[in-house]
């Protein structure tokens, strides 16, 4: 229990610290977001005073105050759920986030589960067939897919599966992109839900293609090290059935270390969501970020960023707690 509390406190401190670092990091950079927003509005034809007043109305702090006061005001806003207002959408940032989060979480969680499971199965298989063609293929494939930006994969997936093979193709509207068929009315109908899943297939495929290779490599090296342990030899000597050794002796122990890299993977997949949601016009947080960049809608970008950071820290925490549940040794280290 004490260990859990300590982890909770660390998570809270991490969130707090990263908000603080980002707040100050941006303000030590040449040019600041407030000026950028004002400049943008002036360029759109507003006179300078009106532009300045508009920006004042949407940021939750007073830009002329000393830095520490701005910071306190900003933090107070964050804690009370006030993240400022959007220029583009003329709505509170919180409302935009509430609309965007479910879509992003929907895509990311399914993709993460698929790529994790795929990685585990393939990684174990390769560990048993070391030095084979698949082994050599994945040692390159995994690093390549991580280095190639997700939008490249997403575009290729749309062109190959959507446009060329016409598997995800609507005769009237071209390749399948977006959250669901716009001709359907949202609701709990079978038609609507299946449309949501149909439209999510290509984005999920893009996520999986860019992330599963890493799991394959990690699972492989983890399995290889477990295979060298004495208790595996002992299990074999006792004549346990092969299936049982593979699943409950090798598999269970080899998966454990993978939980520690879950945090980095979740951060990585969130970074990818900016690209993939943009290419697929998917109305999640990533899409809102990229849409806000052109209009320098700064409060939306920072709000989305805040949510992503919190999500990463929280999922990190969950992975840690899960890990300690599965492997009690970690709590005593």
């Amino acid at each position, binding site marked *: 229990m004490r260990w859990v509390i300590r982890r909770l406190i660390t998570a809270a401190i991490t969130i707090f610290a990263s908000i603080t670092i980002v707040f100050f990091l941006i303000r030590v950079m040449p040019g600041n977001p407030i000026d950028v927003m004002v400049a943008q509005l002036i360029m759109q034809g507003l006179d300078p005073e009106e532009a300045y007043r508009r920006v004042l109305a949407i940021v939750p702090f007073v830009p002329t105050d000393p830095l520490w006061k701005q910071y306190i005001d900003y933090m107070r806003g964050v804690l009370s759920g006030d993240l400022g207002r959007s220029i583009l959408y003329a709505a509170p940032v919180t409302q935009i986030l509430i609309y965007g989060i479910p879509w992003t979480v929907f895509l990311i969680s399914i993709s993460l589960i698929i790529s994790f499971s795929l990685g585990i199965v393939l990684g174990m298989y390769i560990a048993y067939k070391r030095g084979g063609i698949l082994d050599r293929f994945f040692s390159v494939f995994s690093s390549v897919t991580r280095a190639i930006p997700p939008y490249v994969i997403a575009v290729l997936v749309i062109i190959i599966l959507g446009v060329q093979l016409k598997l995800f193709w609507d005769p009237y509207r071209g390749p399948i992109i977006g959250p669901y068929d716009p001709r359907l009315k949202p609701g709990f109908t079978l038609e609507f839900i299946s449309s949501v899943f149909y439209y999510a297939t290509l984005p999920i495929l893009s996520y999986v293609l860019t992330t599963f290779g890493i799991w394959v490599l990690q699972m492989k090296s983890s399995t290889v090290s477990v295979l060298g342990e004495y208790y595996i030899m002992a299990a074999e000597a006792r004549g346990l059935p092969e299936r049982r050794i593979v699943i409950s002796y090798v598999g269970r122990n080899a998966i454990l270390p993978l939980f520690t890299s879950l945090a980095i993977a979740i951060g990585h997949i969130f970074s990818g969501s900016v*690209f993939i949601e943009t290419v697929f016009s998917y109305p999640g947080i990533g899409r809102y970020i990229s849409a806000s960049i052109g209009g320098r809608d700064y409060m939306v970008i920072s709000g989305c960023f805040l949510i992503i950071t919190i999500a990463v820290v929280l999922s990190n925490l969950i992975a840690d707690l899960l890990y300690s549940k599965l492997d009690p040794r970690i709590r005593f280290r």
Partner: protein
Amino acid sequence: MINVSKYKRLLSSTITNIKFFFKVLRRNRVSFAGFLIVLAFIIMAAIGPEIVQYERGVDIRKRFLPPSWEHPLGTDYAGRDTFAQIVHGSREVLIVAFLTAAFTTTVAFVIGIASGFIGGKVDVVMMTFADIFLTIPSFPLLLIIVTSLRKILSPIEMAAILSIVGWPALARAIRSQVLSIKEREFIESAVCLGLSKTHILFGEILPNLLPYIFMNLILSVIGAIYSQVGLYFIGALPFNATNWGVMIQAALNQGALVNPRVWWYLLSPLACIILIQTGFILFMHALEEIFNPRLRTEA
């Protein structure tokens, strides 16, 4: 006189090393291919823009032409040559990538060594800081920094910003390398011989870290290309017609997904990104093999 012979020895050992490098490369054809790809891109970025002329003029009649002798990769939405854009774009991509790698590695190196070598409170503070940076999703962080800037960035400023997200992971890795080297016997014997701390750090630990650092240099190059082209793709950086990311974005805005005529314009920068990243990774695998003799397959 003594100095001259020292340099001669250094020179001959460098030559042996380079010979050895090519021997390993030749044996592994896949890595050799990676090396050639990287070399080709470096040559393209170095001398390409001087040879290939990039005409900025707009000619609507020549929009989205298929490849021909005149336009090896076709033309873009304004009738400009795609190949020339690719060549001119490669220089900025590579310069920023190499600068970022240099910055990232230097910062990570100083922090990692200080943390591992000094230890104690310095270690705890630096690693906590690195851990927090590691948790913050890197690409969104870059986006938020870049969008709050008002001016056009020079390659050096660009690289400095990109290295903000790169250093923590590397610093952590270097620290753990230093910690493991510190435990080896030859360090212990150096301590027993009463050698100075400076000597132990620069004469004993550093040479053992070099291969590791060199490989991470390439990893940083890969990461920098990823982020830099991505920032252009998302539109966070000012419009720059020859950047690969901008080209992909422009092609998508021209309806590239449904219009096969745009595909040459869309797929050329895509293919370049895939090629250059794959090239660097294959090249890195070759280096891994060179620096880690256990991986080497004697043929």
